[in-house]
């Protein structure tokens, strides 16, 4: 703080630099928004005529509709399964010592480090070997594996922060373990679990590389459908659907920041 006041040009340089970086981060989204409003099929900057026709076309495009449906199915199933598996395991990690604790934890967290194309290829081969190739089950399971570390982390952090005395009080008043869990522990964890679910839903809905390997024509998720579209066509429907994507994601993030405090979730609010 003092440093800033004494050395104004350093402060000004940092502010200017940060502004430039933020500009760099926002530029593609802005450019896509402009491109989506262009009435002509060929890109021109600035657009000569404004129109919403590409939004209508994108919404009516069958592959995008199917992709959206598949994507939502996979996202809801995968985040919910991951939430249940992850929260349960976080509970066991926090409370108990058991055989294989570290091993399971390490394997589950390793999906953060292994490239998505490797995980996708692995599940593609595995699914082919057990005769499940290209079904939606494999896609969902792959997504569960990919989002588990995030749910695990947020459930574990919330578990560490709850007041154990409340559980002990309930137990000493005669509540059986299942009742303590359902009426005390889970409600106390709810905000952490909700943010974990939201985070994994956003990640799963956007996941592309692993999905490209494990989905087929029938099961492709929205990002895969969009990728196939970009490879074949160049009209601005892709820009229109990208804009919708960006708006939804940014809104969800702003909400998450408002209600849950992204700073806390991401651990950037330290001692200051």
């Amino acid at each position, binding site marked *: 703080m003092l440093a800033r006041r004494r050395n104004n040009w350093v402060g000004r340089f940092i502010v200017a630099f*940060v502004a430039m970086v933020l500009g760099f981060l926002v530029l593609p989204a802005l450019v896509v928004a402009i491109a989506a409003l262009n009435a002509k099929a060929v890109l021109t*900057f600035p657009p000569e005529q404004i129109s919403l026709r590409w939004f209508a076309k994108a919404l009516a495009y069958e592959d995008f509709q199917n992709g959206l449906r598949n994507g939502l199915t996979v996202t809801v199933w995968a985040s919910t399964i991951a939430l249940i598996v992850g929260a349960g395991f976080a509970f066991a990690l926090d409370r108990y010592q058991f055989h294989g604790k570290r091993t399971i934890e390490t394997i*589950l967290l390793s999906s953060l480090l292994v490239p998505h*194309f490797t995980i996708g290829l692995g599940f593609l081969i595995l699914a082919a070997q057990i005769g499940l190739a290209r079904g939606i089950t494999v896609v969902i399971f792959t997504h569960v594996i990919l989002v588990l570390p995030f749910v695990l982390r947020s459930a574990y952090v919330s578990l560490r922060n709850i007041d154990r005395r409340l559980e002990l009080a309930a137990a000493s008043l005669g509540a059986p373990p299942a009742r303590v869990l359902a009426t005390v522990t889970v409600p106390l964890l709810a905000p952490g679990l909700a943010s974990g679910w939201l985070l994994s839903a956003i990640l799963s809905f956007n996941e592309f590389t692993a999905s490209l390997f494990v989905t087929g024509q029938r099961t492709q998720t929205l990002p895969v459908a969009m990728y196939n579209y970009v490879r074949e066509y160049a009209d601005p429907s892709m820009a229109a659907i990208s804009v919708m994507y960006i708006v939804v994601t940014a809104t969800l993030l702003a909400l998450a920041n408002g209600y849950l405090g992204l700073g806390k979730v991401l651990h950037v609010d330290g001692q200051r």
Partner: protein
Amino acid sequence: MTSRPFLRTFVTPAALCAFGLTAALLAILQYSVRAFVPGSLEPGGLTLENFTALMKPLYARVFLETAWICLLTAITTLFVGYPVAYALVHARSAVFKSLILVTIVTPLFLGEVVRTYSWIIVLGNNGFINSLLLKLGLIAAPFQMMFTIGSVVTALVHVTLPVMVVMLAAALSHINPVYERAAESLGASPIRVFLTITLPLSTPGVVAGVTTAFAWTFSAFATPQLIGGGRVNMVSNLVYQLGFASFNFPFAASLSLAGLAMTLALLAVMRFVARPLERIGLH
């Protein structure tokens, strides 16, 4: 032994997931030592041929290019991200803080396809930058930016920046301000305070950020595929091409395995190099 309610109920599903992931990785391992039978999806007998084929200059070049792109991206991200993380931690206004945070984090959640497509529109020959430069009369013909390492790295920095900033900010925000104040009160200039106190103490964040940026870049697929347009090839693109264009899954498997080994080796080296630095940082 004290009672451990729900232990089995809670651990079994996680163990099954861990088993599934292990099985998938073992499937890759198993395919990587099998022979490719052209025209068949079933692999042939045991062989080490896939790994000797990796040594061919064609494939070795892809590995080198991938490592180079990852390194370039990680270093660029570090230099661009550090001031932003510093500003994020030191900003006094809460609004400014949230503005930086939300802007920084959004690309992270956008998904590779949307992000890559946006960069195509920015960098393409009919794209934003070229249209702007043409209108201003600064260039006479579109300037070719697509299909170059520079544009691939630009688009990759766009996505690694959020992780880098978050990791650096986490490290910076956990530095006790007392140290900086002490140095200042002893008469150190702000630049000296930064170089001798803040920077060394943030080393864990720098190491974590660079390693993650590296691993993420290695994992990128759509960006090098679409912006590189076949002229910039990363391991991920080669794996996909081998799998889905030539159906040579055994070789694709051995490539992924080699890629994984390369990432792990580099991460280990970085940890090793960083250890003495971290010791200074954590005192």
